């Protein structure tokens, strides 16, 4: 039986990817920075460690995040804390039913003194954009974000204007069943790399949080002022560059694509995820590997961000919906059945 193992030789062995020696310390530094950022955010947001990890994943991968949860779980607080730790520009739009697309992107105004039209840039021209309660605005206003989210540019008065990089949209929304909400269109949802679910914190974490909040000067919310600004815009760009260079085995790439493809033929899902999902899985896996401090991407990294990547890109079959099954349950079954890569 001694000849058996030779069958499992993969061609990848013959050409092991040579790790560039100069990149290693840089990669470690980026990892450390990301982990420090995570620690800082954990201070601000208690009891939502998984959500913090996911937000950082999207930040490093250069994707947008949609955070869903019932009111009062700290969605906005998380984003504000992130903006505090991040040295770049931060803007916030509170989405209301009467918000206009030009309120988001900007518009031309007539300047009486110069007797000319001047472009007034909207709040999207920033690094971090918090679209608070995005589903309280109708589809017309939500669509104002479509272009900037995909192409990182805004066309105003016929001229394309690039937004500063890095650019990230963090949108929060209440569950669709709540009063006064408009569902996001699929095209909009697909542009979000991750959709995060905020759930109620555990009991001891809630105890801890209540203790801290009641001690702070502002009566009913955690203070984000003591947080340090750890990261500048160019640092973040560098981290994103390093993450996108992380080595990825063919098997792992194959796993990511298989996961996305499995949603298209899975019983119980009438709408599967598109190619954007595979791309987001791989980018998310790279970002997670960096956040983990790893030097390469593991199948675990892909699998851990799969739920957040896929849950807003698939649609549950009506009969399962009627039976009270959640998208997450079905996706978890899918993850439990798609074979992980080996060798």
């Amino acid at each position, binding site marked *: 039986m001694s000849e058996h*193992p030779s069958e499992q030789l993969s061609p990848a062995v013959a050409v092991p990817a040579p790790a560039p020696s100069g990149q290693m310390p840089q990669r470690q530094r980026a990892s450390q920075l990301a982990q420090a950022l995570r620690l800082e955010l954990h201070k601000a947001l208690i009891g939502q460690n998984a959500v913090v990890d996911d937000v950082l994943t999207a930040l490093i991968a250069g994707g947008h995040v949609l955070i869903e949860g019932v009111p009062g779980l700290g969605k906005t607080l998380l984003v504000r804390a992130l903006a505090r730790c991040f040295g770049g520009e931060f803007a916030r739009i509170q989405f209301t039913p009467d918000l206009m697309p030009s309120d988001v992107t900007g518009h031309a105004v007539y300047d009486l003194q110069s007797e000319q039209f001047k472009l007034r840039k909207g709040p999207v021209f920033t690094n971090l954009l918090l679209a608070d309660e995005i589903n309280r605005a109708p589809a017309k206003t939500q669509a104002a974000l479509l272009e900037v989210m995909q192409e990182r540019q805004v066309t105003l008065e016929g001229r394309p204007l690039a937004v500063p990089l890095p650019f990230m949209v963090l949108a929060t929304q209440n569950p669709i069943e709540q009063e006064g909400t408009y569902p996001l269109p699929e095209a909009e949802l697909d542009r979000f790399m991750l959709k995060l679910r905020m759930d109620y914190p555990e009991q001891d974490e809630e105890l801890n949080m209540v203790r801290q909040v009641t001690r702070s000067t502002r009566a009913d919310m955690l203070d984000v002022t003591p947080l340090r600004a750890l990261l500048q815009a160019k640092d973040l760009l560098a981290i994103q560059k390093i993450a996108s260079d992380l080595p990825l085995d063919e098997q792992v790439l194959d796993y990511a694509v298989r996961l996305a493809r499995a949603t298209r033929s899975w019983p119980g899902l009438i709408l599967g995820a598109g190619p954007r999902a595979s791309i987001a899985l791989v980018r998310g896996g790279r970002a997670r590997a960096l956040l983990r401090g790893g030097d390469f991407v593991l199948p675990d990294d892909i699998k851990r961000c799969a739920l957040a990547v896929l849950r807003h890109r698939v649609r549950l079959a009506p009969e*399962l919906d009627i039976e009270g099954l959640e998208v997450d349950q079905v996706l978890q079954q899918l993850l439990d*059945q798609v074979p*992980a890569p080996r060798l």
Partner: protein
Amino acid sequence: MRLTDASVAIRPRSPWEALDLGVLLARQHAGLLMASWALVSLPIFALLCLLLWDYPGWAVFAFWWLKPAYERLPLHILARALFGDTPSLKQALKALPGLLRPQLLASLTWRRFALTRSFDLPVMQLEGLSGQARSQRLVVLGQRDAGAATWLTVVGMHLEMALWLGLVSLFYLLLPAQIELDWSWQSLANAAAGEWLWLEHLSNLLYVLVLIVWEPVYVACGFTLYLNRRTALEAWDIELVFRRLRQRLGGVAYGLLLGCCLLLLQAPTPVMAAEVGNHPLPVTDPIGPEAARLLKQPLSSQAAQDSIEQLLDRPPFEHRETVTRWRFGEDEAAHAGEEPISGLQEWLQKLFKLAELWTGNASLALLFEALLWAALLGLVAVLVWRYRQWLDAFVGRIGLAQRIATPPSRQLFGLEVAPESLPADVAGTVEQLWAEQPRAALGLFYRALLSRLLHDYRLPLHGAHTESEVLRLIQDLDQSELSSFSQTLTLHWENLAYGHRLPPEDLCQTLCHDWRRLLEQGVRT
């Protein structure tokens, strides 16, 4: 009885037409019938009135009760008159004693209230049947015209009352005005005193007079109904036609018969064509309508005929229906009817025996317990059956089925993990391979670890588990040495497989040592 002598046209009629014929018959012989009826009934009524002078009600009741006895005479006259042999009044009255004799008691007692009296009378009187034969005959006859006969009696009763009332009114109208002035209704109401007996007898007399008119009609109608029924049953009309034919052709027939016999008796001589005609003639005419034509057309005449036949075979032209009904197998039913009774008796006897065995309540309670358990199990089965699709769709997928998956798969993660597929000495093989093929060596190690975990530690591993999830499962085993060994192995395996980094040289010794110490024995035991 000669049907050819009948004075009425004999043919099947509807019952009402037959009744009409009866009225006509009665009218034709009205004088004779009414006279004979009056001659018989009036003396009897006078006699009854004398005997029961003080009880006029009873007198008329007795007279009414004896009606079947008087009805025999009109029937006798009608039966003879029908075939042209009308008796004179004297002859009829002479025949009366002979007519009264048979079955008079039955007619006046239990058959008195038969609703089909006039219809039944000919059976007894003309056919002379009695007892079983009579009742069978009546059943056969009554299959069709009994309804009309019943209506005849019912209508007759009302007609008698109407005629009687009319006659009473006429009598009242004919009273002279002076008498009418003195008429006291109140004294009439108190007539029971006795002075008004003659009046009651007078009204009874009026009833008897009404009967003189009505009863012959009633008897005649019943008689024609009876005739009609027999005409239908015995095909008298056809018989009559044959009789007439015979009368008309009686002489010619013999000659004809003789001629036919002579014709048929001639011996057949061989025909010249018969010898030649070995070839059968073509059945179809080559140029007839049946011949195949239009052979080069898309629709040949044969196909057209076929489709026409198919069309003709289908509904608007053909209407076929199959009727399936339940009916009793009469013979079997007769036999089977006896058995269930004996079976039932046997069953009851067994039941009683069983009941004797149940001395205490305990056995009864046991029975009920069994029944309740059976009901519960049945309910569960029904629920499972009711929600089987739901169970298929969700329970299977949520994970109940996976938990039961007993035989560990031989193929896992695309690796052969069955113990037989591994070399006997894993560590030795790894040491050999390490220098040249480190990936194969580490792969073998990892594969062997998974195999041990599956088969020795019974870890529920399946294809979707990633390396770190396998590690977490190992940690749940609470074996610190095993988990630290697995962590080291997994780390280097991941480095090699996904990071493409070669393991350090000295790792081989450590891993092989740990393997031999921790896992080698596990296989052998």
